């Protein structure tokens, strides 16, 4: 009896501490943190975080290459335009499992939703560093409406989708916190949230492309297309699928002890399945890009220097990874599919950087000098990537994402 009361008295703070240190005593947990990877992260952060501080003391000019001609630098080119398609993981996985009924992909849903949520969260963090008055970030939602603007749509959809994804992921958080009753409610809204997620994703993934419809004189004609919203949407689908392959590959390698048998055991098979779906997306996308050139009759431009770069993007970074993925799927080789997925992701990033930075203002004199980012900006981006990875790992270490919580057998 006595022991019991003591145990109860200790329960609450001890439980919280235990949750944070994963059940280890603090000293042991702290010792475990000293790893080569963490040391590299700490070094990058020790340079990057003060630079972020500098941006708020001395202005964007001291840390970015953004200028009057090139208002958007790699903070957005990488953080927003490349980050958001790579975060399409949540809607593709939730739709596949909850709407289309591909139940066997269930072990990957939570990872997909978490990857998506974190991706959007960090896209907003890049944005908060980049925009002039970050404390006004809610202005499009509450203070002054500019509904003729595609960016207004993006602002609304990214913010609501961020909320939707948090709700979609909330069962995992609630299981970690042992909040049984709240979790029941969170599970109930899954399908509604998934449908809301698809709507919002369709619109803002394509809206990110539609933003550039306002820059017809500035974006190179091979990249400027009336189809640009469709390009962005379709490529986000296979980007999401490939990103799930990439993230699950890395997680199964480095966080094996946090994953259960149903995750590890089924991963190779599911990877091939995801690769198959990605193939379909990539094929549609590749065909559309070619039709895009035909539609605007730009064949002649293909023989120019920029045309060469266009062919590099479309052939080496869409067609080739598509063929690699196809080969992997045909042979049922998860290894080849993984290669193809990483290659395809590089292609998605390249496309987005081409449109937002490399091919934007291509006709201005001194273009190539103007787009080279300063080392300071590179370090800011690197340190946000590091933070992204660290927080992601922190969650995967603690919450039931790669595994089922035995206390909640119905969750999968």
């Amino acid at each position, binding site marked *: 009896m006595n022991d019991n009361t003591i145990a109860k008295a200790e329960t609450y703070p001890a439980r919280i501490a235990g949750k944070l240190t994963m059940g280890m005593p603090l000293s042991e947990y702290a010792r475990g943190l000293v790893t080569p990877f963490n040391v590299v992260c700490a070094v990058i952060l020790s340079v990057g975080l003060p630079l972020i501080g500098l941006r708020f003391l001395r202005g964007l000019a001291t840390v970015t290459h953004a200028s*009057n001609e090139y208002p958007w630098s790699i903070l957005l080119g990488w953080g927003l335009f490349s980050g958001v398609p790579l975060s399409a993981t949540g809607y593709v996985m939730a739709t596949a499992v909850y709407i289309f009924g591909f139940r066997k992909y269930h072990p990957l849903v939570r990872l997909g939703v978490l990857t998506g949520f974190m991706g959007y969260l960090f896209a907003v963090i890049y944005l908060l560093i980049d*925009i*002039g008055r970050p404390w006004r970030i809610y202005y499009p939602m509450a203070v*002054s409406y500019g509904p003729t603007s595609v960016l207004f749509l993006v602002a609304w959809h990214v913010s609501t989708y961020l909320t939707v994804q948090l709700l979609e992921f909330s069962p995992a958080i609630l299981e970690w916190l042992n909040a049984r009753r709240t979790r029941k409610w969170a599970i109930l809204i899954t399908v509604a949230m998934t449908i809301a997620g698809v*709507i919002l994703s369709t619109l803002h993934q394509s809206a990110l492309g539609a*933003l550039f419809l306002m820059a017809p004189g500035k974006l190179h004609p091979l990249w400027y297309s009336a189809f640009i919203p469709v390009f962005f949407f379709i490529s986000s689908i296979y980007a999401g699928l490939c990103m799930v392959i990439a993230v699950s590959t890395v997680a199964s390698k480095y966080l094996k002890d946090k994953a259960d048998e149903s995750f590890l055991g089924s991963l190779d098979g599911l990877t091939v399945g995801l690769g198959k779906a990605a193939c379909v997306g990539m094929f549609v996308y590749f065909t559309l890009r070619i039709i895009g050139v035909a539609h605007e009759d730009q064949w002649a431009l293909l023989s120019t220097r920029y045309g060469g770069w266009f062919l590099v993007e479309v052939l080496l970074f869409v067609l080739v990874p598509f063929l690699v993925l196809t080969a992997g799927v045909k042979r049922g080789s998860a290894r080849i599919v993984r290669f193809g997925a990483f290659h395809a992701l590089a292609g998605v990033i390249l496309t987005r950087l081409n449109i937002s930075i490399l091919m934007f203002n291509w006709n201005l004199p001194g273009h190539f000098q103007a787009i080279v980012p300063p080392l300071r900006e590179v370090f800011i981006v690197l340190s946000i990537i590091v933070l992204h990875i660290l927080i992601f790992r922190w969650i995967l270490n603690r919450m039931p994402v790669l595994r089922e919580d035995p206390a909640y057998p119905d969750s999968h």
Partner: protein
Amino acid sequence: MDRKGDGKMELKRRDFLRVAALAAGGAAFLGRPADALASPDLSGWPDRAGMLTDLTECVGCRTCESACNAANGLPAPDVPFDEKSVFDRKRRPTASAYTVVNRYEAKGSANPVYRKVQCNHCEEPSCAAACPVRAYTKTPEGPVLYDKDVCFGCRYCMVACPFYAPAYDYESALEPRVVKCTMCHGRIRAGGIPACAGSCPVGAITFGKRKELLKIARDRIRRFPDRYVEQVYGEYEAGGTGWLYLSGVPFPQLDFPDNLPKKPIVENTKGFLSAVPLVFTLWPALLGLCYAANGNKEEKG
């Protein structure tokens, strides 16, 4: 009685749909303004003002720059206004200069050609259409104005402006603004004329009603066909601009963009914006059907 009941049901259902649409993220008010606001019908403002710059008259004295600086209380320039060395490189409007004059050694012209650069005050401004917080207004008087009190510094206006007009306060850490020419809106409303036009010693800048300026411009081209190329830049570019130009050499030689659509640039996003309500209504229906179909399949299986 029955009919009345049905009517009520109908109404309720409609209300429910509206609430559902709103809850889904504001479809109702995202969709509507695409047509209502994107393309203001300017025929109601027939007397809107414009400026005509005759580049064949301009002698590059930079008096307009100096007058603009004084009229708008801008900081003193690094290089004084009577210094000609600034012409050695091409400049653009910045956070501390609403207008700049550049010099061009143009082909087919014995003398250098000077070009004044500033916000062109578009008829349907891309900056205004692009702004997610509606910080820009096309005033009935003609000038396009920017409101720093709602701007959060996304700089999409700068991406969308085909003329590279807006500049940004990149040096300011916490209160950066977008900076651009106001066509001296305050002076116009008080019955005056913009500082640059008023100060030009050679009469290269004419202030007036845009429609009158177009007549003047066409008349000059007609009377002096050897002096001008046959184009009034700004008449149609990007849907037309408040600032109009006459030139003796082809405009692309003076860095005027020659790849702009004749219709307002915002037209390019209208199709996309009008598809938004469709996605909001069609997707739930289609996905709901998918979900229902799969639910049945599983029960059977």
